[in-house]
């Protein structure tokens, strides 16, 4: 294990311990309610970036994976009153399988066609759930939070620590993919899939792997949702907000490294939480949209790119070398 990995793991362990400590120190329940959402977006953004940022396959259907995770958990809760670890595992298996299928789509679909297909999957999943009476159909269903374990005062606090753990896990997986040969292969696919293929990069296997891992992590992010809210309905979990945020946060943070999505998610989701409380929830989604367009247009490397440029001390926004002039 390299030194940097040891540092990452130590940092992650400290973070989870810190989160556990906070549940003892902070009294305000709303803090955990809000922090849970921020951490959930760290997981979603990191997961999206594995396929979208590293491999360049833009997934517009993140909400479908999130919702599939959430509804898998709900169905298991209704049927067997299954314990939390089982819910997480099952949700991950279901959405990883979905991810594998989406990965298979990349066989024939590139670019916008792939993205449209992911929108299609989201709408089809939503239609199925709306027509699925067992989990409440369009009206939704409520879920009772179990009594918290000894260690935690409330169940929301337990879920908050769990989500901190998942966030560290997602960032760790993203980091592993990025620094290993898998990441190099995915970057080769993003830059030129045909060239990569012809140089012997196992493109299909890599894409299937990235899509499966990305899907599984998104399902993990969604699995505790119903327990956290106490209620679930299709329109809230299939909300466009998840699809947009999962894509906007990595792009705003910077898609080149695992740090970007984490940075983007922490900043953006925190701002969103503050704006939702102080102004309105419509305005906070508008902020995400406007920031997304601004970054895509003016700072394609995201915050990480801006930081790198500041460090290098060069003036920003010079066109890259070799640009075609018209």
């Amino acid at each position, binding site marked *: 294990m390299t030194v940097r990995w040891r540092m990452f793991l130590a940092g992650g362990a400290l973070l989870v311990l810190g989160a556990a400590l906070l549940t003892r120190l902070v009294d305000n329940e709303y803090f955990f309610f809000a922090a849970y959402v921020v951490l959930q977006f760290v997981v979603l953004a990191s997961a999206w970036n594995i396929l979208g940022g590293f491999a360049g396959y*833009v997934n517009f259907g993140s909400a479908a994976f999130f919702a599939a995770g959430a509804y898998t958990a709900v169905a298991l809760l209704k049927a067997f009153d299954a314990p939390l670890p089982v819910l997480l595992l099952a949700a991950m298996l279901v959405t990883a399988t979905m991810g594998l299928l989406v990965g298979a789509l990349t066989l024939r679909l590139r670019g916008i066609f792939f993205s449209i297909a992911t929108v299609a999957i989201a*709408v*089809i999943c939503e239609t199925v759930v709306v027509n699925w009476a067992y989990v409440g159909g369009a009206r939704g269903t409520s879920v009772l939070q179990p009594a918290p374990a000894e260690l935690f005062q409330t169940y929301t606090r337990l879920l908050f620590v769990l989500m901190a753990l998942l966030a560290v896990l997602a960032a760790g997986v993203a980091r592993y993919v990025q620094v290993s040969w898998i990441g190099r292969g995915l970057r080769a696919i993003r830059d030129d899939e045909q060239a990569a293929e012809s140089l012997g990069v196992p493109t299909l296997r890599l894409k299937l792997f990235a899509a499966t891992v990305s899907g599984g992590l998104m399902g993990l992010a969604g699995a505790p949702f119903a327990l956290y809210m106490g209620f679930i309905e299709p329109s809230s979990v299939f909300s466009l907000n998840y699809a947009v945020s999962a894509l906007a946060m990595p792009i705003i943070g910077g898609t080149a490294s695992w740090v970007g999505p984490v940075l983007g998610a922490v900043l953006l989701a925190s701002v969103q939480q503050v704006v939702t409380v102080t102004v309105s929830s419509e305005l906070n989604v508008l902020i*995400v*949209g406007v920031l997304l*367009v601004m970054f895509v*247009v003016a700072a394609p490397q995201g915050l990480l790119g801006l930081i790198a440029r500041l460090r290098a001390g060069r003036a920003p926004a010079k066109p890259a070398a070799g640009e075609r002039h018209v």
Partner: protein
Amino acid sequence: MSPDLLLEALVAGVLLGAFYAAVSVGLSLAFGLLEVPHIAHPAFLVLGAYGAWLLGQYAIDPLLAGVLLAPLFFVFGLAIYRFYHLVFERRGSDTGLRGLAFFFGVAFIIEVGLILAFGVDQRMAEAPYIGESLALGEMRLPLRMLVAFGVALLLTLGLSLYLSRSFPGRAIRAVAQDQVALALMGADPVRVKQWAFGIATATCAVAGALLIIVGPVEPGQGRLYIGRTFCVAVLAGLGSMPGTLAAGLILGVAESVVLTSLGASWAPAVAFGILLLVLAVRPTGLFGR
């Protein structure tokens, strides 16, 4: 399903299908011919519908409002394309991810902007032909669908003629075929594409008016139409106008049959189902190049 019911579903499907063709012609142009990843097209439609609704407050007929708004949309389209070209196409690398994210963001901003301005309530238009229907034996044909059908036919046929007969229209098809060759003939491909994108956006004003004639409109409606419009544009074979009409009719009939046999809640999945099928089996579409 009884034959009567089936016949009714078929007729309703044909009317609906022409309407779907009308809302998709703009996308056939922008995405099919120009290859712009125009995922904001449905949002433009909803914007057009709200424009028609807004003018309707001054007792202007929605169709007339659509025609009045078309020049404004045309200019808006010119500006959007110019911007897209400057920022993404010219820089070359990585247009895929960023272009998509850009239009996705634009669509999202339009949707949320409409919510902030007008709220999430459904809006309806008023016109003498909305709410009336034509009795044809046992069958009742809603007049609004007939109006939409007529306008849709005019729009697709008009565009089809424009692209095949007029000089600028043929320039648009030329730029889709071979940009470099067009440039060698002394035409500026960027200006031709800008013009075409303007027209594509202008059709959103008229098609948006149809949207609010056919049914109530709300800001989030664009998302449903991502599936329908892309289904039609891809099934059409990218850029073909007669193909767009045919594909629209196929989708309309399929949706209408599913609606009568399975129920309304399954209808939204039809477009996406067909889309996935076409992408998997015949990505070039019916009339593909």
